[in-house]
């Protein structure tokens, strides 16, 4: 017997439609998605949607955080600001929730999936903010250290 929850299966069934919607609307959803060519956008969005499916199935926040860490690092290497990465992830999650709401309007599964996707998006936004805040903490410490050294150098 499969242990993958029903909602995860519903999400998997919906995934191609979500991907299609995101590809169509990516310019209006988020500028950073709009700037990407089709193949890159497909790969980036696909990675997020893959992970969302796994997160819905497992509910493992550690796993989610690890994914966000990698994703932020990857996008930072492509010169995307953390704020735009956050906006992009929220746009993807929100679109997935909207597609779920439209596709399964009125059905209990559709209702629950919509709500779950909205909450996953909230978790994602919080996770990204936590990571940005951690990075900020590291940089502030670095800044304090450099300022101290500069002050000592002047003396």
């Amino acid at each position: 017997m499969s242990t993958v929850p029903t909602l995860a299966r519903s999400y998997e069934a919906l995934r191609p439609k979500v991907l299609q919607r995101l590809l169509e609307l990516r310019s209006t959803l988020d500028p950073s998605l709009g700037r990407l060519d089709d193949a890159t956008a497909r790969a980036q969005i696909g990675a997020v949607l893959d992970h969302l499916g796994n997160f819905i199935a497992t509910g493992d926040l550690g796993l989610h955080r690890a994914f966000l860490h990698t994703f932020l690092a990857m996008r930072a290497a492509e010169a995307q600001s953390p704020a735009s990465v956050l906006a992009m992830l929220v746009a993807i999650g929100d679109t997935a929730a909207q597609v779920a709401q439209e596709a399964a309007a009125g059905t209990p599964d559709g209702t629950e999936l919509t709500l779950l996707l909205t909450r996953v998006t909230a978790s994602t936004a919080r996770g990204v903010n936590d990571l940005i805040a951690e990075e900020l903490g590291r940089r502030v410490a670095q800044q304090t250290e450099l300022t101290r050294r500069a002050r000592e150098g002047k003396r």
Partner: protein
Amino acid sequence: MTQQASPIRIAGDTHVGKVRTMNEDALILEPRLGLYAVLDGMGGANAGDVASQLARDAIRDFVLHRRAELAPKALLEAALVAGSTAVFTAAQQHRERHGMGTTAVVCLIVDPKHVVIAHVGDSRAYLLREGRLQTLTRDHTIVEDLVERGLLAPEEAERHPYKNVLSRNLGARAEARVDLLELELRPGDRLLLCSDGLYGYASAEAIQYLLGSGDAPEHVTRDLIEIALRGGGGDNVSALVIEAPAAAPSSTQVVRTSGAVAWWQHRQRFLQVASDGGLTKNPIVRGLAPQEAIELVALSLCQAIYHDLEKSTGVNVWTFAQNLAAGWFERGGDWKAVRGIVDILGGAARAVVDDIRARDAKLGFLLDVAVSRALIVVELALGGLLAERLRQIDSDLIELHGAALDTVEHDTLETAPPIEGSIERPGERPADRPGERPAERPSERSIDRFIDRPTIPFLRPDRPVTSSGESSEVLGAIAKAITIARGRLSPRAELVAQILVALETVATDSGGNFAAAVLAARELYGVRSVDNAGVMPLFDALDKARVVATSSVHQVRTSPAIRVRVLRALCIAHQRLVAAATGLVLEAVVPFGERLREVQVVTGELREAVARAEQRRADLERKFATIVDPSLPWGARGSTEW
């Protein structure tokens, strides 16, 4: 005038306008008959209003008495003919009313989904469907007839002097040719019947906007007339709005109405849960009285969510989050406190939603999604602030790093003069060799090593050039000219002074190759690093040195012939020095270009590796997902350490 007898909502009104003294328009609002019309009378003193009223009464009476006998279309057509006959007959009986007539646009509601529209003249019927406005009728004017027959371009019609001259009206003849249209109404459709006093003074965009505003028909009618009056009100204005019953309200409408109200009704619960959750103890509200903290933070968010639910936006919540966190971050506050307070408020919001969901599952679900979205907006606003702060710190760090590097360079210059090898070779940055700093002074060994180094072809140090072979007299004059030039420099022009020395060295060198120039340039270039200012200060200094040196030649006490030879020698030396410096710059850039290419290759490989890793991660996650224990609540099913 508003009628609510049928499920279709209808409102109509008429106004004399700002110019006319008499209103010649007339309306029919007969919910019992399902009959609605706008008529616009015309024709001399006291006749226009008579015509429209005569036609109005005749049409209404005809429909009232004959509706059981005729099919809707035939009924309406015959009714308008009856109206025309009534006006025509009256005009024949009264000479002063001769020539009077009226337009008419009439709508007969057959059932809530089916209407018939009949019209004669230039009063119009519009349909607003799914936000788009379409004209259902074609004006019966001479100009429109010409356009239809292709004798006039549509754009010319607007400017045509006869654009208002009717080709058809009720009353010109006993008979009337009537245009008829059947229409299936869809949920939310809006019909507008109006006289030319409306569309002649209000743009189609304004009409579309007001019809699509979602306001009640009586408000739309009032606003339409108002906008025509503001547009000049040069004619009588009449508008009649018919609204088909809307479909079941969308989830957005439910949230905007019932959801927002339910949320606001539970505000005390929100405040209570926020207070119980420890909001008043959060560092952000330290210094505030508990009640003040609750009102300033919790009540503000509660209000912001309420207004955003009402308007289906996130702007109020966004502003709240910005105001809450921006001041705190500016004071050096940490993320933990903001995170804590948002968690407390989020908990309070969920408690309210759970309460509503317990009573009304559907509304509760919609509200749950909407409130969760509001909390996402909070996170987005906070993320923007954090990212901005990160950007500011980054730029501060860059400055601090720059200052630190300046200090190091300054110390190095103080302790050791420029030496060979100060230009980095690929993969040999001093930073890569901690503790290893070149400390040796220029020596024969380092010069040899430098000369042996491969360099760009046109600057090979051993390339033979014409020996200067100057006499001792010329060499002496060169030394004197340089001494004079140095004396003319300000103490701050150190680099120019160094270049003058280099010029003397190159000009008096008898080695017969470029080595002296390259070595001198190397010393100069070692003093300058390719920093933010680039290499231009070096070339500026080279130019200044040339000007100072050549102008100093004239102050040397010697023969003109010697001066000429000194000038020539200095100019050649300057050219060689500039060429050597240019070469060194190019040489210095080459490794960077190579390294850039290497970095690009490595970055490409890394990207591919990370993409593979992401794929692998997704596969592992999926694998993990198949062995997870579904009996545990979501969010606690896995605890993998990645």
